[in-house]
């Protein structure tokens, strides 16, 4: 079952890598809940958590992590974390941390894995310029991601003239021509449309000079402040798992599939993982640890939010992101894992 | 076999889940325009016979011939009036609308009807025309059902203990109206009653039923119109006593369980 956290049936030959005191303190916290963003999808910030559990890395840091599948509602998850029902949850990008903050949810980002926007805009193959979308319909999932809005603005599109609708998670609305443009994740919808054999054009925000991020791990700041070592060790274990999964995608996706009960599209998820982890690699500077937070980039991303009217002003970012947990478990770009030494 | 009578042959009817048949080979002949009373022990099948005649249930075996056609054909002609044993009024309709019902239902048949007000006055319910059934006493409800059956001036009038809940004088008045109707139109009346006296006073023939069968048919040879004297006279007495004797036989034979009878007549 998805909520099983000890999985006694699995092989666990990983030794404890933290000292006894720390191990005891972590164990004393009892079961901690991580709620995924969307089901058991093999995204960055999800697959490595599921794999860390399966590979026994959480056991190695004496954390008892319970993995709960989310339903795709980021703000709902933010609410769960603020309320203390869950302890860790991913958000799609840093902007969502700001938005959650705007909405009085108490969460902060502790790691940002991708440093380019993951959103992309899909249109039919014959669209040559984004201004052609004026007067057309654009579909999104609950709201148009800020990077895409910024991209459209950059491209000189009069956004007000575009009819925006919520189109759900089924990308086939695009080839059906119910929408002429579709907001999506570049790791998701394109793969689906490819699988359907449909033609489309993908528009990437960075090509219009728009910066962004994806794959943010968030926690409740108050709880994290009280239990910094647990947050550190959570990041340690997932970082370790990321390393493993970067080379063993198939194995890790199989771990995710294990959790799922309702039918898992392995192929699609492997594609998601591979494209996202690749983006993480390519957007992380050589000398920085994976997941590092670059507040200057964040500032810029926040700026686009202000430009598109999502935010009134760029808030004080310091309190909303706390890189120290991640830094504490890395030396330079390498994760600290006692076993290795 | 001819169009001028009701002819029922070897009628058999068992209700599902019941061991004793309600009708067990019943034969009956009623010439047109005749007034026939059915009398018999409780549960002997009188209501069932009436339901078969009205085409409301079909017999397991046997034939029913009503003036050369079948029960359904006669209903189709709007020629059948039924007063069921329970008044069966529409609870959501006023007395007036309940009585007006036959005139409204199936207008195509277009049979003339008495005006509703006359009918209501006839049964002494003019003052209650706008009441609803739940505001009526038991006898008043029964009178509404009677008025409703009279409304069509039917060719065949089937009445199941219509006067059982009425006091003697109301009953007398309604009996007279029934006889009126019967004589003005060529109505044939099949009348179920438990009152031997009533049967003798009204009918041409009294059919005494034993469980599932006709036990005996007693002709009532009294002149008409029958005044109070004729009905209470010695001839009537004799006939009533005959009927009563047959009824007694039917009752004794039919009671499957010995009835506690202190007189020990059995």
């Amino acid at each position, binding site marked *: 079952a998805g909520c099983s956290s000890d999985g006694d049936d699995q092989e666990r030959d990983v030794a404890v890598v933290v000292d006894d005191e720390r191990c005891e303190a972590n164990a004393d916290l009892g079961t901690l809940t991580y709620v995924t963003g969307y089901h058991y999808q093999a995204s960055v910030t999800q697959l490595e958590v599921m794999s860390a559990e399966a590979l026994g890395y959480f056991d190695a840091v004496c954390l008892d992590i319970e993995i709960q599948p989310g339903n795709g509602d980021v703000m709902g998850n933010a609410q769960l974390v603020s309320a203390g029902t869950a302890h860790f949850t991913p958000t799609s990008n840093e902007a969502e941390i700001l938005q959650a903050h705007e909405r009085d*949810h108490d969460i902060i980002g502790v790691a940002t894995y991708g440093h380019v926007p993951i959103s992309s805009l899909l249109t039919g193959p014959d669209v040559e310029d984004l201004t052609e979308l004026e007067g057309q319909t654009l*579909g999104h999932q609950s709201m148009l991601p800020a990077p895409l809005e910024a991209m459209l603005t950059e491209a000189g599109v009069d956004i007000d003239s575009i009819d925006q609708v919520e189109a*759900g998670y089924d990308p086939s609305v695009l080839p059906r021509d*119910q929408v002429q443009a579709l907001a999506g994740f570049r790791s998701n919808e394109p793969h689906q449309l490819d699988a359907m054999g449909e033609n489309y054009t993908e528009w990437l925000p960075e090509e219009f000079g728009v910066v962004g991020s994806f794959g943010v791990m968030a926690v409740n700041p108050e709880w994290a402040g009280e239990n910094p070592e647990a947050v550190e060790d959570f990041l340690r274990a997932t970082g370790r798992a990321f390393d493993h999964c970067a080379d063993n995608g198939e194995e890790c996706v199989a771990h995710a599939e294990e959790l799922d009960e309702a039918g898992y599209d392995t192929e699609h998820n492997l594609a998601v993982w591979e494209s996202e982890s690749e983006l993480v690699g390519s957007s992380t500077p050589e000398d920085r640890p994976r997941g590092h937070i670059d507040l200057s980039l964040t500032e810029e991303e926040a700026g686009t939010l202000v430009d598109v009217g999502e935010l009134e002003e760029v808030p004080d970012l310091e309190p909303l992101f706390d890189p120290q947990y991640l830094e504490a478990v890395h030396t330079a770009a390498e994760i600290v894992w006692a076993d290795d030494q | 076999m001819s169009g001028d009578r009701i002819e029922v042959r070897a009628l058999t009817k068992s209700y599902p889940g019941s061991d004793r048949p309600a009708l067990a080979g019943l034969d009956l002949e009623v010439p047109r325009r005749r007034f026939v009373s059915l009398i018999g022990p409780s549960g002997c099948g009188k209501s069932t016979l009436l339901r078969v005649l009205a085409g*409301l249930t079909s017999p397991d075996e046997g034939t029913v011939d009503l003036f050369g056609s079948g029960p359904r054909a006669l209903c189709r002609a*709007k020629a059948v009036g*039924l007063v069921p044993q329970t008044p069966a009024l529409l609870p959501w309709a006023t007395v007036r609308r309940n009585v007006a019902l036959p005139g409204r*239902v199936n207008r195509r048949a277009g049979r003339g009807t008495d005006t509703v007000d006359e009918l209501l006055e006839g049964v002494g319910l003019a003052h209650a025309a706008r009441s609803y059934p*739940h505001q009526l006493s038991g006898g008043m409800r029964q009178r509404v059902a009677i008025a409703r059956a009279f409304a069509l001036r039917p060719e065949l009038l089937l009445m199941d203990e219509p006067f059982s809940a009425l006091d003697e004088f109301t009953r007398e008045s309604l009996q007279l109206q029934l006889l009126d109707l019967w004589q003005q139109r060529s109505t044939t009346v099949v009348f179920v009653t438990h009152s031997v006296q009533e049967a003798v006073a009204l009918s041409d023939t009294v059919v005494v039923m034993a469980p599932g069968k006709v036990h005996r048919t007693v002709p009532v040879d009294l002149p008409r119109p029958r005044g109070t004297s004729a009905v209470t006279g010695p001839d009537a007495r004799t006939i009533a006593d005959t009927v009563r004797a047959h009824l007694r036989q039917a009752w004794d034979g039919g009671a499957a369980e010995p009835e506690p009878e202190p007189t020990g007549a059995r």
Partner: protein
Amino acid sequence: MSTTEHSPSPAAHDARPPRRRTRVPAWLHPRTWAPTAVLVALLAVAWQAVAREHPYILPELGEVGRTLVEEPSLFLENAWTTLFTALIGVLMGAGGAFVLALLMSELDVVRRALMPIAVVLNVTPVVAITPALVVAFGFGMAPKVVVTALITFFPVLINVTTGLRSVPGPVLDVFRTLHASRLEVLLRVRLPSSLPYTLAALRVVLPLSIVGAVVAEFVAAGSAGGLGTMIRNSAATARLDLVYAAIACLAAMGVTMLALVTALERRLLFWHESQQDPAR
């Protein structure tokens, strides 16, 4: 030693002079509203206690009230959007179910053919097929109306079907001897007889239509307005005061609808046992 009872009291208020009854409308009498008022007050206190402890579960009532008062037109407009969808939906759903129940009660073939399909429709979670509905009906109001109609369809179908069969036998006998057509039996006997069931279904289904419209706004792509959209957006932004203010509007709509059905019942069912003097 004799006891006399002036009013032997199971039906005690029969004995009161009837004038008394008409002078003060029943609903003004404390007996009518006091229990609700007391319970509501208690719940409000409990609510506030929870709200103070767990701001993520419930908002404070004062806040909800303030939100409602501040922008009444916002709520009125959205309520109207939702209500409109709900009413069209229930009209189609309940109306269709009613007609179908009539057909089913008359034609066994129809019943046998359609009942299994109705059941399948009923257990199909509409939220699951809203994407398909949007594909089929576009982004406008249509898919929402369809969702509402689907949700309200089945309770009406079942109750009316049961009701149409609940006719006393002797009454049917009389109609049969009158050679009433099936249509006449249907209109003059079966339909009135089924009224208690139909009205019970309405009681269930009118509030349900509101839920249906809200759920549709929730899940159907392309919802610009309506209380459902408002609730979803407010929930996403953790504006629980807005969420519950919207729910309060929904509740007001639901209660009004039920009151209407109750009034209708009084008018139409005066003859039915269920409406007789409760003290009998």
